[in-house]
């Protein structure tokens, strides 16, 4: 079961994950949306962030209206954006504006007013803020959820052709209570309502966390995994504080296709940024029908194991058993009889006793010294292959971020080198793999390492020389690896990135 490896990946989190790069300060971010190859996120107060690659962000997104917690969707040739204003909460209004583009430098950039689509009158059990818009992929209907801690999260139907209410006086449906920043997604026959619980706006003292319930119907009821209705405060934890970040809130889905899904959120406080509220993008995993927050890959040394073959990526060099060779002898490989002090084979004995093929060599066998075992490795490019993992030096890979080389949603590009050396994994111009003697930073030596929805990983070079194809590390046969087009249905391009 792939998810047993998730624990191993979690255990491998020996160093900090990377926050996004650039100007990432934002509060209550919208769903991240793409427009003409760029990523946009809008936030409370107006404006927002733009990124070319989803890793490095800059201020520059523009919208009118101010207000709080916008959300945005692209339908047809329009981008509909919803945000809330209030002069006297819990009286509030959700406004809609639309545009043909989100690029403020485009000649087509012009926000059009769409009017108020939902309200709370200050008396009813709702505070009409934190709108989120959802296009049902099954029915094509458009829905708006909204609400905050005063009363209920509510659902109303919108017209996908106009972004406005289908029936303006239609009674909203109450779907959750005592939460805010709701968002709805669809997956495999279920509608999921994600909402933020806990206290907001207190920096490092914020208890913000994101919870989820699901329903077979878009109108609910939304129950958590223990059957508690979100109308009664139910909700399975999706993500909470951890590491160097406090108070995740405002879930947004970023679907990159090919089964790769991510989510965006903000943290109330990024401890490495003075407690500022910042944007983040992380993998979205699915387990037993429930979404889970994944982690972006972290710097460290790992085994890279093929899910398909169960064998590990390694340099195609003569391996040396850890602790030294055992004597030659019976069929079975590298000798089955230990070599005694005098150099002769030692006869069999009881396990744990002195001598004998099962008794070990006494004491702790240290990790291989790569400087020593690599003395016999050729000084030129070395091929790659897959082999049984035996904790040997040529099978351990260090994954490290590369500064100023760009990235992809959630992460920078990484170099993958044999631990303790500069030998770097690279793509060749015939879409094969090689380990070059030293990392130079060339695009074919930069790697995109993304967690897939089942917790395994996809590993792709930034570029393949002389090719425009987007390829991924792939097992071929049982013992070799290559680069191939990513097939979300196949195990061949799935990898476990494990503690070594």
């Amino acid at each position: 079961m792939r998810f047993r490896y998730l624990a191993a990946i979690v255990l491998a989190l020996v160093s900090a994950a990377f926050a996004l790069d650039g100007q990432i300060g934002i509060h209550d971010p919208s769903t991240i949306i793409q427009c003409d190859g760029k990523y946009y996120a809008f936030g409370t107060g107006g404006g927002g962030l733009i990124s070319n690659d989803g890793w490095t962000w800059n201020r520059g997104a523009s919208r009118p209206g101010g207000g709080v917690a916008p959300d945005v969707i692209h339908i047809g040739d329009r981008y509909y954006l919803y945000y809330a204003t209030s002069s006297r909460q819990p009286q509030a209004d959700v406004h809609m504006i639309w545009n043909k583009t989100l690029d403020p430098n485009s000649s087509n950039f012009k926000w059009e007013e769409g009017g108020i689509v939902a309200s709370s009158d200050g008396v009813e059990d709702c505070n009409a803020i934190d709108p989120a818009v959802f296009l049902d992929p099954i029915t094509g209907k458009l829905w708006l959820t909204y609400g905050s801690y005063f009363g209920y999260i509510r659902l109303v139907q919108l017209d996908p052709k106009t972004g406005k209410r289908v029936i303006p006086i239609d009674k909203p449906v109450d779907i959750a209570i005592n939460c805010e920043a709701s968002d709805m997604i669809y997956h495999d026959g279920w509608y999921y309502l994600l909402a933020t619980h806990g206290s907001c706006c207190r920096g490092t003292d914020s208890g913000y966390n994101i919870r989820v319930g699901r329903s077979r119907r878009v109108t609910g009821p939304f129950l958590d995994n223990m059957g508690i209705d979100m109308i009664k405060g139910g909700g399975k934890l999706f993500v909470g504080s951890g590491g160097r970040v406090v108070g995740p809130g405002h879930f947004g889905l970023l679907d990159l296709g090919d089964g790769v899904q991510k989510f965006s959120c903000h943290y109330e406080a990024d401890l490495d940024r003075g407690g500022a509220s910042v944007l983040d993008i992380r993998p979205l995993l699915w387990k037993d029908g429930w979404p889970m927050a994944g982690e972006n890959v972290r710097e460290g040394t790992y085994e890279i194991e093929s899910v398909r073959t169960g064998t590990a990526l390694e340099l195609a060099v003569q391996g040396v058993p850890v602790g030294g060779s055992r004597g030659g002898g019976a069929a079975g490989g590298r000798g089955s009889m230990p070599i005694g002090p005098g150099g002769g084979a030692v006869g069999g004995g009881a396990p744990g006793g002195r001598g004998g093929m099962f008794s070990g060599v006494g004491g702790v066998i240290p990790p291989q010294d790569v400087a020593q075992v690599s003395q016999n490795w050729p000084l030129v490019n070395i091929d790659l292959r897959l082999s049984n993992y035996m904790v040997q030096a040529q099978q351990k890979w260090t994954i490290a971020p590369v500064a100023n080389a760009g990235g992809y949603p959630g992460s920078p590009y990484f170099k993958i080198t044999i631990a303790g050396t500069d030998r770097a994994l690279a793509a060749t111009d015939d879409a094969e793999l090689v380990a070059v003697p030293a990392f130079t930073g060339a695009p074919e030596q930069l790697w995109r390492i993304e967690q897939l929805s089942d917790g395994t990983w996809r590993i792709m070079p930034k570029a393949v020389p002389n090719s425009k194809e987007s390829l991924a590390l792939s097992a071929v046969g049982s013992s070799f690896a290559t680069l191939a087009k990513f097939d979300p249905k196949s195990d061949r391009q799935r990898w476990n990135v494990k503690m070594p």
Partner: protein
Amino acid sequence: MRTIHRHLLSALGCLAGVAFMAASQLGSGGDSVNSARGPAPNLTRPASAEKAPDADGFIQRWLVLEPIPIQIRSNAQLNDGFVQTTIKTEYFPGQYTAIPHDGDRVTVNGNELMWHAIDTSVYHVNLYHFACALNKPTFNILFWAVTVINCSEEMQGVRLAVGSNAASIWWINGKEVIGIYGDRHMVIDDGVSKRLSLKKGTNIVRCAVINSPGVSDMCARFLDTEDKPVKRFTVKLGDVPR
């Protein structure tokens, strides 16, 4: 809720235009404050002698005291120590032991406050609406609530399961059984007590809920040894004599 909302609510106090309906069939029938605005959503005066819990075991009949103003800057203060100290200040004589009746009055810091018998039609008691209906403060307040449950048999090994916005402390028959602290929102079964016993006959459930700005709210039920709701009781507020 975010800071901007919190500040606005603090400044505005009660916005909801609600009031209790005047009808009462219990006890001496304390006066309710009528306003020109409509009734509190989901809250009514009891119209029957006794009331069973709802289908999920939630207690739906309570005596609630009009809110006591307290000194608090924000819900960030609601740690264990602050809540314990604030709630356990003596505001009126017998606040842990007296069984109030509908219409009874107490004096707190020179202000007369009244106990109101209320039924909720949902699983929780929205104290914000309760206060609004009476034109009372809705933030920086402490609510006391009491109910009298009548069990047909002794029940051992049950637990009191509560939720509140924000912090609260609960007593069963005079013994403190659970406190939940911090700036929390009400969810069902948020705090669950250790196992306790309910006597055959009358048992007193008492709570104090404390909040800064926001929607004060509470809910309570009992869970049996299999974590299923206990429903073998009724609430009869008139049962205990003055």
